[in-house]
């Protein structure tokens, strides 16, 4: 439409998920259908070591610049084997406990559960991930 770029805003499901996440004390991240990190709620920002306003949206291929994600024994994990990657690529929930080092340099052992957001007609619009510290903390 003239003067209107299609998808001038995020998919409504993502908008509602973000609104929901913004009210939670549980750490939550959101990606869009391409795997771009589009939102971290306040609780989740602790993992990043910076606020989301500071780091902004992060394409999937640039996650590693901000987060070092490994198995607990230190083995690197490819993106497609992360809970978020599985939810995105295989469209199913996934769960894993792993070690994440954020921008602040601190290593955290986190349990992460991710699930795909499917809108009508099985349209994948993104992924929601929740996590908590494996020792029982809240991220």
């Amino acid at each position, binding site marked *: 439409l003239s003067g209107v770029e299609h998808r*001038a*805003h995020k998919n409504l499901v993502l*908008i509602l998920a973000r609104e929901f996440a913004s009210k939670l004390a549980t750490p939550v991240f959101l990606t869009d259908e391409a795997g771009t990190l589009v939102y971290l709620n306040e609780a989740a920002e602790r993992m990043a070591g910076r606020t989301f306003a500071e780091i902004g949206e992060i394409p999937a291929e640039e996650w590693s610049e901000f987060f070092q994600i490994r198995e607990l024994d230190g083995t690197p994990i490819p993106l497609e084997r992360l809970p978020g990657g599985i939810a995105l690529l295989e469209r199913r929930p996934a769960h894993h406990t792993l070690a994440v080092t954020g921008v602040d340099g601190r290593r955290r052992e986190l349990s992460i559960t991710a699930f795909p957001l499917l809108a*009508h007609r099985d349209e994948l619009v993104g992924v929601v991930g929740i996590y908590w510290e494996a020792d029982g903390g809240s991220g």
Partner: protein
Amino acid sequence: LRATIWGCRGSLAAPGPETVAYGGNTSCVELELADGSVVVLDAGTGIRALGLEMAKRPPAPIHLCLTHLHLDHLEGLGFFLPLWTQGAELHIWGPASAIESLDNRIARYMSPPLFPVQLSEVPSQITFHDVSDEEWRLGSARVLAEAVAHRGPTVGYRFEEGDVSLAYIPDHEPYLGEDEPASLDPAWLSGYGVAREATVLMHDAQYFDEEYAERMGWGHSSFSHAVEFARAARVGELVLFHHDPLHTDADLRRLEAQARRQWPSADPAPRLAREGMQLELGTDADDDLSGPAVSGFEPSLTPP
């Protein structure tokens, strides 16, 4: 592009002496496109009188675009005369659902025990369409439908002809849970793509601010949120729609006055939708940038 409002009440029809100025019929807006095509937005009780008017015209395909299937947007369908006219061609558009087809969902209303006759018994030729994720054409208009924040599958519509555009989002709660609406990035604003820089926006403004505080999450906007949404979308003119059934004409005048005080520019100020209101968009070759022309008419009072 001419828009005629046949119903702008929300939630429940509210006829009576205290609602005669703005009308008691629920949502229904008729669009007459440049090529003569007719589009009907929603099938609230206002569609009954529209159907009587249409019966006086030569037969032509009718496109009925439903924003969603809540009863105040659907309950007039069973009393829409073209539905009961042998050979009438009716296209019904509505939001897709992951659960059930559009015709099956509408048939829930048009079937016993809620309605005496089943949808499968109507004599007109009905074709059901899930609205597309991409823009499409109806007659001479380009149409965009996008999901908006309201309970259940719900879309807002945008119709464009030439340089003019009408955005119709009668049920919408874009700032649910948002503490600072004015600071919200439009990329995260429900309905923005439909409303952006529209010549005219018809938008939900069901509540006074103090009422909204007690009805948050019900899927509707306060007038302040409607004003803020229109400002964020930089629309040309805001028409306040979906009046609460408990609001009298006097209440609505007060709501309009408060909305105008919040409007960032003096002209054209927000105004209330009312039954019989007609808006002409793009009547001049150069477009009337001062706002659409408005006239009124008396809806038919003849029962079907």
